[in-house]
Structures are given as C-alpha cells and as structure tokens.
C-alpha cells in the first residue's frame, strides 16, 4: 500500500471523486483521492501495487513527476447526509475513498447526527491510516470498529469478515445515510444487511469500480447498465443500480 502526495496548486475535489494517474510510458489508472478536500496544494492518493501501472506509480519517489487528470466523477452525497447518522463501511483499500468523508465529518461534525465507521481488512498489518483511526476515535460523535479476516493471538480486536458486523452497527435505519466502499462482493452482502435492517435503498450509497480509460463517459470501458461509472459514478445510490447490482457480465 502506497500513499502518493502530488503537489498541485489548483486541484480542488469533493470526497469520493477520483483522478486518472499516469505512469509515463506505462499507462494510466483511476485512483480515488484519499486526502482532505479542505487542503489545497497537495492531492493525496492511496494505492495498492497490483498491476503494471500501480507498481510503476508505487516506485515514484519525492520529486518525481506523474501525469494527473481530474478530478472526475460524482462523489459521496454529503449534503444528503446532513442531520443524519453517517454510516461508513469500508473493506480493504476501500477505506481510502472514504477518508475524505471522515475528514469532512471531523470539520463539520455539527452538520451530522454522528458517524460510525465499520472497517474490514485482511490482517492487522493491512489496516490503513492506523494513527488517524486512533486520533479520530477520541472525537465526539465518531465511533469505529475494525475487523480482520486473519489474525494471530496478539490481535485484540475483532476477527471475521465485515458482513456479519453490519448487524452490530448501532444503526438508526430511518435517519442514516450509508456509504460503502470495498470489494463488490462485500458491498452486495453489506447492502443486503442494511436493507434487512430497514434502510432504504435510496439511502445506501456504494462506490463502484470498473476499468476506466477516458473518465468522461466517451470510451465505454466502464459502462454499467445505462450508466458510465466514470461520469455518473463512481458513487451510486443502491436504488439507482439495483437492477444491475451483482449481475455477472455487467
């Protein structure tokens, strides 16, 4: 896992938006913005080196130059969550696109009822933003829980996949807005749990991921039913995408 901070004096973004990052000579890839939208001057991306482009990006050192286009897409609906309980469910690197939401909550806590983060990841060593999680936990109105899939006996937190923990969230189903980001299978099962607990599909938002190229809805690489994830998303309400959610070959 690598965090790249790109100096960019005029880059403004909203939580949930993404940039196309270009590793010169290799290619480009959509990477969500994981920094604080209130900070100007640098734009932060957290990525996992898994393919040719992200491996090349991960090798960059201070002073290196990367290509960057953006921000693109539709982010998290923070205005729709005003006055409500903010429920954030993240899996693995899915915490990165939700971190700007947490920053926003920390700066505008009075605009919300409260915030609850449920974060699942593979093992304790993979937990992102550990120091920030500890710092945030002391802030009024914010609570979080981490669960890992695998752990040795030294780990004192929860062990197990994130989906059953959704049943334990102190949820206000009629007064909550949920924002989910992580592997699509996790999104499906977590969304299903939230629906079972009485939330409306229109109050559940998921960040979808597909192979993006142009990022402006022209090339069709990221078409998802009638939507283009790059332009109409990546954040969708569950109500918008329910007919295609979980269907194969879409």
């Amino acid at each position, binding site marked *: 896992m690598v965090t790249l901070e790109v100096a960019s004096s005029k880059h403004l973004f909203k939580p949930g938006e993404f940039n196309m990052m270009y590793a010169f000579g290799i*290619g480009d*890839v959509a990477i969500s913005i994981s920094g604080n939208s209130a900070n100007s001057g640098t734009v932060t991306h957290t990525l996992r080196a*898994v*393919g040719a*482009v992200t491996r090349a990006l991960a090798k960059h050192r201070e002073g290196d130059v990367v290509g960057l286009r953006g921000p693109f897409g539709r982010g998290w609906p923070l205005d729709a969550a005003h006055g409500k309980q903010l429920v954030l469910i993240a899996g693995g*690197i899915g915490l990165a696109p939700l971190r700007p939401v947490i920053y926003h909550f920390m700066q505008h806590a009075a605009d919300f009822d409260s915030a609850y983060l449920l974060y699942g990841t593979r093992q304790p060593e993979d937990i992102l933003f550990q120091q920030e999680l500890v710092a945030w936990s002391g802030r009024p109105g914010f609570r979080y829980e981490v669960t890992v899939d695998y752990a*040795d006996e030294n780990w004192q937190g929860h062990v*197990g996949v994130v989906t059953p923990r959704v049943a334990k969230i102190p949820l206000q189903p009629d007064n909550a807005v949920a924002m989910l980001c992580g*592997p699509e*299978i996790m999104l499906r099962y977590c969304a299903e749990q939230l629906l079972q607990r009485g939330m409306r599909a229109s109050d559940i938002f998921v960040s979808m991921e597909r192979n993006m190229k142009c990022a402006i809805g022209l090339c069709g690489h990221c078409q998802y039913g009638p939507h283009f994830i790059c332009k109409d998303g990546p954040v969708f309400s569950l109500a918008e995408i329910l007919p295609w959610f979980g269907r194969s070959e879409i």
Partner: protein
Amino acid sequence: MKTIDILLKEHPFFWDMENTYVDLIAGCGRNQVYKTDDWLAREGETADKFYVIREGRVAVETEIPGRGRVALATIGAGEIVGWSWIFPPYRWTFDVRVRQTAHVVALDGKCLREKCETDKAMGYQLMKRFSRIMAERLKAARLQVMDIYGTHGDT
C-alpha cells in the same frame, strides 16, 4: 440478581422463543464469568456445553504448525458459541479462548439433548436457531476463504 431464565430472555438468541421453552432450557444453565485467556473449549475435548455470551468477547482459535495460534473468528455479547454438543462424538472442533472478560450462561449439552428428545417442539425451536447461526457462520467462512481483500487486480 437476575435468574437464568431472565438472562436468557434478554439474549437475542432466545428472542421470540416461547417463555415456557426458555424456562425449560434455563434449567440446564449456569451463570459464569471467565477471565481473559481462560479457555471455554479445547479442541478434541468433550463438548458438553454451549455458551450464551452476555458480555465480553471470545475467540475461536486453532494451532497451525509453523504459524502458531490463529484466531478464526471472534464472538461477543449477544452471540453464542458452541454447537459440538449437538452431534456425536460431542467433541470440540476448535479452541475457544476468552479475549475480554466474558459473562456467559453455560448450558449443559447433555441436559439440553435430553430435553430436546422429550419435547420435540422445543428441540425444533432450538435447532432452528442453531441452523440460522450455522448458516451465517458458513457464509462468513466462505467469504473469509475468498480472501476478498487480496490482490486480484491487474492495473
């Protein structure tokens, strides 16, 4: 001080169960407290109980040669642990160790089996609840095996 039947009626596992059944089951129970690192179960030993967890947290663990002790799942307040008492040979398949001081109602497996045989309707109610939990934990275990946070991307 609350009696066992009250403690059980407050626990989600027994919500919606007829009071007469809960009262019957409560006759097999004992209120217990286990400290951190106490063992509730050891792999291979006789499984003569299941635990209704009221407070605290326990971990289902096993020992993997070369890797040491591995936690497979943690189970906490409002949940239950242990179903090996239902089926022969009535032996625990994993270790269960306390992570945070656990307040539990320990229900005697043999006593419960006898009551289930005598009162089949009660036994059905109990087994329905166990089946649901088994299905949920099987689903969770399948997701765990999928390693959904692994590095499966290609860009």
